[in-house]
């Protein structure tokens, strides 16, 4: 049995040790906001926060997780009131929306580490893929959230 804290709540699960965190979150903990995109840590659709660090949950294994604290998209706020979510709404960022959970958590991690990121910081930190091409709005929303402060 592995114990982790997810969005502030203690959860337990029992899986094969090679099970990626992504599938623990989706199939065992029932939180479907975190998405599967590539399975090889290339696209970032499965990004969650491990502590304050953004990780690609498809490539973090369950066996390394005991005692860990995880934040998923569901843990930011239900009503879209987290400053990054508000900025996302203000800039009308999402199109299909599938990559946006990961994109938002990558942005939250960036803003925690660098409250006023430059464009270069954003280029370096946001390596998630969006096939709808929302990058310009993601950039604008990160700057907007930085203005508001986390």
């Amino acid at each position: 049995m592995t114990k982790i804290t997810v969005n502030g709540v203690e959860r337990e699960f029992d899986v094969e040790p090679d099970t990626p965190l992504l599938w623990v979150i989706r199939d065992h903990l029932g939180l479907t906001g975190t998405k599967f995109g590539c399975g090889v840590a290339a696209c970032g659709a499965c990004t969650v926060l491990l502590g304050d660090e953004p990780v690609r949950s498809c490539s973090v294994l369950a066996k390394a997780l005991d005692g860990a604290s995880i934040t998923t998209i569901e843990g930011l706020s239900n009503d879209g009131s987290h400053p990054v979510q508000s900025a996302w709404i203000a800039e009308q960022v999402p199109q299909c929306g599938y990559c946006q959970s990961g994109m938002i958590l990558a942005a939250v991690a960036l803003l925690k580490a660098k409250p006023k990121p430059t464009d270069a910081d954003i280029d370096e930190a946001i390596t998630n893929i969006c096939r709808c091409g929302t990058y310009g709005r993601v950039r604008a929303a990160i700057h907007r959230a930085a203005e508001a402060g986390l």
Partner: protein
Amino acid sequence: MSGPRPSRRAVLIGGGALGLLVGVGVYAASRKPPSLAGTLDADGAYLHDWLHVGHDGSVTLRSGQSEMGQGAFTGVATLIAEELGCRLDQMRVETGPAADYFKNIGVGREVLSPNHGLAMGTPRGFLGGVVNFVAEAATQQITGGSSTIVDRYDRARAVGAAARQMLIQAAAKSWGVPVGECAAEDGAVAHTSTKRSLSFGALCESAAKETPPAHIELKAREAWKLIGSEKVARVDVPAKVNGAAKYGIDVRRPGMVFAAIANCPAFGGSLKRLDDSKAAKMPGIVKVVSRPDFVAVVADTTWRAKRALAALDIVWSDGPEGTDSPSIAKALAAALGAAGKVEAKGDFAAAQAGATKRISAEYSLPYLAHATMEPMNCTVEIVGDRVEIWAPTQAQSVTVADAAKAASVSSDKVNLHTTYLGGGFGRRLESDFVVQAVEIAKEVGKPVQLLWSREEDIQHDFYRPMALVRAEGGLDSQGRPVALRLATASQSILARVFPPITWIGPDFTQFEGTVGLPYAIPNTRAEVATISNAVPVGNWRSVGHSLTAFAKESFIDEMAEAAGADPLDFRLAMLEQQPRLIALLKLVAQKSGYRDKTPAGRGRGVAIHTSFQSAVAEVVEVSVGDNGALKVERVVAAVDCGTVVNPDVVRAQIEGAIVYGLSAALFGKITLRNGRVEQSNFPDYAVVHMAQAPRIEVHIVESSEPPGGVGEPGLPPLAPALANAIHKVTGKRIRSLPLIDQGFTA
């Protein structure tokens, strides 16, 4: 798999009208759930099959169009709310079932577009009948061809206006006042002189008993509050920032199991031998399901299915020989020599022979995958003879027809729930993943969710066809263009997905963009040649235009160079009879500073193209380093899409199409070896990331013309404008994509 599917193969009986009817029946899969219009439920009443009004005053659009990020929910809800007399925040949107009352008439009409080179105008008699039959068959429930607003613009407003009238009639009756003294606004009907008001919620039941008006009067454009407004936010955005939006992959059913799949890696190959002894002993395994073209493992969780799939020992046979990129390139080159005419204006051969200056060029483009962020998936639950399907699909009519066939039930036994789509771009017009999920569900007796890996998604797509376009042009002694020939060789998409089109002419998706040219060139000729092979091809954002615009707009630049003219001026001179296009080019030139000086190593290129009834002009500004390092600095687009329903959605779609087109231009290629796709995931099928995304500005021309599409038209001009910009900087002509194969890095 490749080749026509039996379910959609034309059933022609002797080529007569009866045969056509039978053939058309196969495509226009009909599904007629009972109409809900005028009926009540626990929450309120249906004033139309598309529209429910709740006792709580909520107005719900039941959408027949899929939401894949393109704003269909918001656009159609806006059209209804505008006429109904409510705010958009009073509206909800949910997807309706597959139903004939949701069919997309706009797509059927698109088949008849003169720009599809049917070369028959509006034919009469038997041929006219055939054309109309085909258009009828193309009228399916489908979200594609940038057609949602084109189709729904009049129809959704009429639904809103009729419902408004029913609500007003009900209110007027209850007050005993003339209908003409009542008005609907903000979700209520008001009788102004007596200051009485009734909410839509209070009126919904009585309104449902009213007869919809025979004559529907729509609001004057000047009275619009929502259509064209900058203040209307997308209805789907809040659920897409908190994880609440449900995609296909998020469907959960009690007792469900999960399937992972391996498709036959070689197109045209099949399963030879399967050893599942190791996998069958792994934890949580429910079943291994095999078919000639796939093997699937079903388990109690997604991960257990995936790891057991990897433990299978499978031997597949190869497909037909010659299914590799070099052979296909040779076949395209050979086919071009025998290209057939699809459109001719003047006398190209004579004009070209008499031209002072003659140039020619060949443009080659690769296969491309869609790579939607949400990999293919489908959830199926079979109970008795009822088949419940949850799918992120763009094609409800086809999905129901193919699922019914796979489950051996009639289509009225199939209940399709369309989820949010994690990207579509044309990939989800296909039903392959639905049919597989039905096949698997038949064997496990539990609700099952099939989810493809990214590798399966890249290697088993319906690809944008590989193509070769030959362009020839002639200039007179003053440098004026007198002749242009564009000949395209590629595979046919519609021969597989919609063969009736071949009854009335060649597949327009192969040559669209080379016919009906707006340029005043007196002698033009468009030709097409078709090859076939085992590689499945399909509709990829902007379809044929993604190929032909690159060739056409690159070659126009080459002609300008041969004429010693600036590429922008050269185009303007050929568009004197096209005021809308002239205005677009001037706007994009002004906003981009096209004529301003650029520092060394930087340059601008322009292109303009009309597709899906909208025109887009783009100026790309690019920097090229000494080592070929490309940076696309800025893209400025000007759009004429007629009447705009939501300007921010239009901007978002053009931005998105530019990035999608840039991914393809810089990196995109699918190559084949021994019938197998060589790429497998984002590390080797690269796409644009944040650091490579240019600044994009979109300028929309004000227009009161009927709306055109916006999901696709932003894509075609991007690659040629970029190639033209690179030529400006380097002097090198780009005639083949992607750019990473042409000595550039990005």
